[in-house]
């Protein structure tokens, strides 16, 4: 098991995109953890005489319009965005797999109905879902997670369906079914491993889009509630002053851009690294394990 994990990590590290994404995502997780116990300035320390301050030794990236330390808020915000990304990917992945199972079911009524339902629901914009959800829930992380997870889950199912159908109708699945394999076993034993490359790329794109959506929905007032640090919150509170204090918008914008690029590259690199068909190192490990 450890040998396989090592082969995957070393494959990721060999690619420039994989290296970049590992470093960025590793830093993201590290900063999120560190921010739980330490930030350069206390989060709620504001100084009315020190608003829109330029970068300095005291405030590494300057301060915003309330005098709050930008780098401290970005560090604390990384936690919220990490939580949003993880929950959105889990929600989208679970919904996507559920829909894939329905769309590839042997029961043709269930399969056809779910295909039509996905095609109909996928036309509903994520923002509209978020606005509707915000009515009962108010601005909250749950609105972002559910709205984005719903939209991305539908998209995932639609994109992965052709590949999943090929697997579901394959001779090896027929062999498994004739030996008594259940639908769940076929889904997780054969379909998921064979559509994993598509899933990983789609989910990494969803993760990146969730970061962007958090910024957009928070700017619209239906995302992260006021007072909760997030990268979207940092952007929303400074973007109106972009022509006067461009640096205060640049920092959160840069963080969001770098993380989204890293997530996209990570999906591509991970797809190649975890797939034994495309990664000879993984296949070598399997042979060595057998010989041992």
């Amino acid at each position: 098991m450890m040998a396989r994990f090592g082969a995957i990590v070393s494959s990721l590290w060999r690619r420039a995109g994989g290296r970049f994404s590992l470093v960025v995502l590793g830093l993201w997780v590290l900063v999120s953890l560190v921010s739980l116990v330490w930030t350069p300035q206390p989060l709620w320390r504001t100084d009315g005489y020190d608003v829109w301050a330029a970068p300095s030794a005291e405030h590494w990236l300057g301060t915003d319009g309330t005098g709050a330390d930008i780098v401290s808020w970005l560090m604390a915000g990384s936690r919220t965005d990490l939580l949003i990304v993880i929950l959105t990917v889990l929600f989208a992945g679970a919904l996507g797999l559920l829909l894939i199972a329905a769309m590839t079911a042997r029961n043709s009524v269930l399969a056809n109905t779910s295909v039509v339902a996905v095609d109909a629901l996928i036309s509903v914009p994520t923002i509209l879902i978020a606005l509707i959800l915000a009515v009962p829930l108010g601005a909250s992380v749950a609105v972002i997670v559910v709205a984005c997870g719903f939209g991305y889950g539908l998209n995932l199912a639609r994109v992965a369906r052709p590949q999943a159908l090929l697997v579901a109708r394959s001779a090896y699945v027929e062999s498994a079914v004739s030996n008594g394999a259940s639908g769940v076993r076929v889904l997780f034993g054969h379909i998921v491993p064979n559509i994993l490359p598509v899933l990983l790329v789609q989910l990494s794109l969803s993760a990146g889009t969730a970061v962007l959506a958090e910024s957009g929905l928070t700017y619209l007032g239906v995302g992260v509630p006021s007072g909760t640090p997030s990268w979207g919150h940092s952007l929303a509170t400074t973007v109106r002053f972009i022509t006067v204090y461009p640096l205060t918008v640049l920092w959160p914008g840069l963080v969001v851009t770098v993380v989204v690029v890293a997530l996209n590259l990570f999906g591509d690199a991970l797809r190649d690294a975890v797939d034994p068909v495309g990664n000879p190192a993984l296949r070598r490990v399997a042979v060595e394990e057998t010989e041992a």
Partner: protein
Amino acid sequence: MKNGLTGTAQRTEAPTGEGAEAPGAPMLRGAHIDKSFGRGAARRQVLFDVSVDVREGECLAVIGGSGSGKSTLTRILLGLETADAGTVAYRGAAVTGGRRAPGRQALRRGSGLVFQDPFSSLDPRWTVARSVAEPLRLRHRGMPADEVGRRVAQALRTVGLEPATFLGRYPVDLSGGQAQRVAIARAIVNEPKVVLADEPMSAIDVAARVQILDAFAAIRDRRPDMALIMVSHDLGVVQHIADRVVVLHDGRVVEQGPTGRLLAAPSDPYTRELIRAATPFVGRP
């Protein structure tokens, strides 16, 4: 010269003599099977009142041209497709009549499948060990890992593959012949009573076909009670391995009988045409 097919090594003479029926009680019996595909104007009947028996320990070859209904018939016999009319019985218990048919589960448990394309019949993301072990894990949930490993290794050896070399490989690292032998090992690892091989040699090169034939011969030597249903275009292969032959033409059985007799003295014009067409390609040293 009887028919030009007698030059190849053969295992086809019925033990009870030329022209006699193969031994063993009927294990699988299909009677008056009709099957259509499509609806309305596109509806096309592919099988017409087909009756066929498969006996314990025999190798039954189903031959015929493309679209003659060979694969459909064998899939119906193994309960993988449903017939529109007619019955299929396994050891006397009905296989047709829905999922709860008494013979259906017994047949599923007692059958193995070998498909035409070896690469599409193996999960590309599973190792050989995992693929071959799958029927054991599905049919014998509590079987200890050691026992699973032992039986997987034994199945691989039976088809001429060294377990130490092949267990950890993925299909992408196998040749066509090796992949097909892995698929055969998967089909026999559960020690089934009947194996369906649907044109198992049509997608692999000629040299590898010999290995496949050897693998089937080894299996039949080891499991003399196991029935083998082989769908094939290749009369050379049929002559080499089959005890009995069923000839299908446009969804109807035009002739059936022991391999030696049927190939030496075909009574139906279509069978004669098939043999005449195959003659230039078989029987050469």
